[in-house]
């Protein structure tokens, strides 16, 4: 259980953050400069809030009312930053050992050999950080932080400095570590694909305030919260399970409450829970079921609401069974089809519109 309730003022920046989460991975999501990193720094003890309280698993790290403010080294909160911040004068081996040797052997719950194996660090041990690629640096940074046996892991935009291929690679490693070590984690990002793929609990941060929190799928489908996510493309998140694979055409069918979804080949076993994100601009609507169309996914849906009365574009909130979905269409189309709450429609989604990067193991 992570509880944060802090207020902080620095020069002309004000931060008010309040959230509590019991999920394995909590995501802090918002635009750059919204204050996400400051929240993380406060949890780690690198900045001191003017007032408030921070507790991890019932252990109080900061409480202005009771005069508690643990030093960063006493918090047992591990951080991985955007730039890996490896010690340049030490080998990879010495970097990995730095935090590990500061923890009493009885308190270590992360095995060095296992971390080196999982993160593929064996061949890098004698190298210096300056000779490592960006992805390798980030792997070492993850290993170094884990070996300090932290009680909470803070990942502050760990992928932001990497190219797309390295992003996918490190994301895979983070999933691996999550499943292996089950450490409570706070993941900071302004990239919606990363958040939907990894996180269970979402905290939206905007202009120095935490404006909403809750289950990832529910929160990202709420129309009133679209503005802070707008730049990163509004959409809905569907919780599903892998139903079957079609080897011949390389397609995977996902089953969710209310229907099935066909996506391009997904590397997951049947029965595994996954999360798929469907951008609202990739959803088209039709009153009648189209015949002879290329759409793989034709979902029967009912209109919940039609948002935005002005402008050329409207967001139509839909419900497919119990699952929310959003379609972004022109206002002209919405009026031509006579869309209003309660109207039955068919939501059309191309299989390839479901970005493979946005499908992750839940």
């Amino acid at each position, binding site marked *: 259980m992570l509880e944060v309730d802090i207020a902080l003022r620095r020069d002309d920046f004000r931060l008010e953050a309040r959230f509590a989460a019991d999920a394995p991975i909590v995501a802090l999501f918002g635009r750059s400069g919204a204050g996400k990193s400051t929240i993380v720094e406060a949890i780690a*003890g*690198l900045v001191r809030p003017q007032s408030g309280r921070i507790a991890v698993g019932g252990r109080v790290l900061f409480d202005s009312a009771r005069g508690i403010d643990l030093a960063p080294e006493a*918090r047992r909160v591990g*951080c991985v*930053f955007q730039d890996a*911040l490896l*010690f*340049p004068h030490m*080998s990879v081996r010495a970097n990995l050992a*730095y935090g590990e040797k500061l923890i009493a052997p009885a308190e270590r719950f992360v095995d060095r050999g296992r971390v080196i194996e999982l993160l593929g660090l064996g061949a890098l041990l004698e190298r210096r950080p300056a000779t490592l690629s960006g992805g390798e640096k980030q792997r070492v940074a993850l290993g170094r932080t884990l070996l300090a046996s932290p009680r909470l892991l803070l990942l502050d935009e760990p992928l932001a400095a990497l190219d797309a291929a390295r992003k996918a690679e490190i994301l895979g490693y983070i999933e691996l570590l999550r499943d292996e070590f089950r450490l409570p984690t706070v993941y900071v990002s302004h990239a919606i694909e990363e958040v939907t793929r990894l996180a269970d609990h979402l905290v939206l941060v905007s202009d120095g305030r935490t404006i909403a929190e809750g289950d990832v799928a529910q929160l990202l489908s709420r129309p009133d919260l679209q503005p802070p996510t707008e730049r990163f493309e509004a959409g809905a998140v569907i919780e599903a399970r892998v139903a079957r694979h079609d080897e011949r055409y390389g397609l995977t069918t996902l089953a969710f409450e209310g229907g099935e979804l066909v996506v391009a080949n997904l590397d997951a076993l049947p029965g595994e829970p996954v999360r798929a994100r469907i951008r609202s601009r990739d959803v088209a609507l039709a009153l009648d079921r189209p015949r002879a169309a290329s759409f793989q996914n034709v979902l029967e849906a009912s209109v919940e609401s039609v948002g935005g009365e002005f402008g050329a574009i409207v967001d139509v909130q839909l419900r497919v069974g119990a699952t929310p979905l959003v379609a972004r269409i022109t206002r002209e189309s919405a009026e031509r089809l006579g869309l209003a709450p309660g109207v039955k429609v068919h939501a059309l989604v191309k299989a390839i519109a479901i970005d493979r990067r946005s499908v992750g193991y839940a």
Partner: protein
Amino acid sequence: MPTREELDVVLLSLKVAAWGVAASLPIAVATAFVLARKRFPGKMLFDAAVHLPLVLPPVVVGFALLVLFGRHGPLGRLLAPLGIVFAFRWTGAALAAAVMGFPLMVRAIRLAIDAVDARLELAARTLGASRMRVFFTVTLPLAWPGLVTGALLAFARSLGEFGATITFVSNIPGETRTLPLAIYTFTQSPGEDAQALRLSILSVCLSLAALAASEWLARRPPTARRDA
């Protein structure tokens, strides 16, 4: 070959400079760290005070030391019962050398600490290291070349120290007569130019050796601090 007397002068100079640097280095590192990393009221004033010996006439510094640390000076009287005496001793020459070399040492070390990414220090603390440990395992090893440069600058400055030394502890053969003072003494007596020249050549050799040694040291950080 240098004569016995010349060798004694060189050894005294080395002793004075080495003690001056060794005694002031820890204070200089602490001062440089405070100037590079801390913000506090009156920092400008503190910074100016540290640099004062660099801009004051050395004779003024020597006179100030005489007033403070002389037999009847407030600090001299305080330290005398503890067996610490500076007046007219080689230790006083070392003190004068340390004070004159201090600003150079602080400047070099401060620049080196400034160049160390402070976020590396924060990362080390989140890994469980105390401020002290972070300083000795991250900040100091990364600032090592600056430390060597600073120590060498101060050492070279100490070998050449003249004004403050002669004002504070006078020119006593075998006790406070370092190389520059010996050269000065020879130039003051007629017909001793050759002696002055011999000592000057020795002085040049000494400086070159110190430069070479520092180049070598700056390239090799101490392995003990690498922390395997």
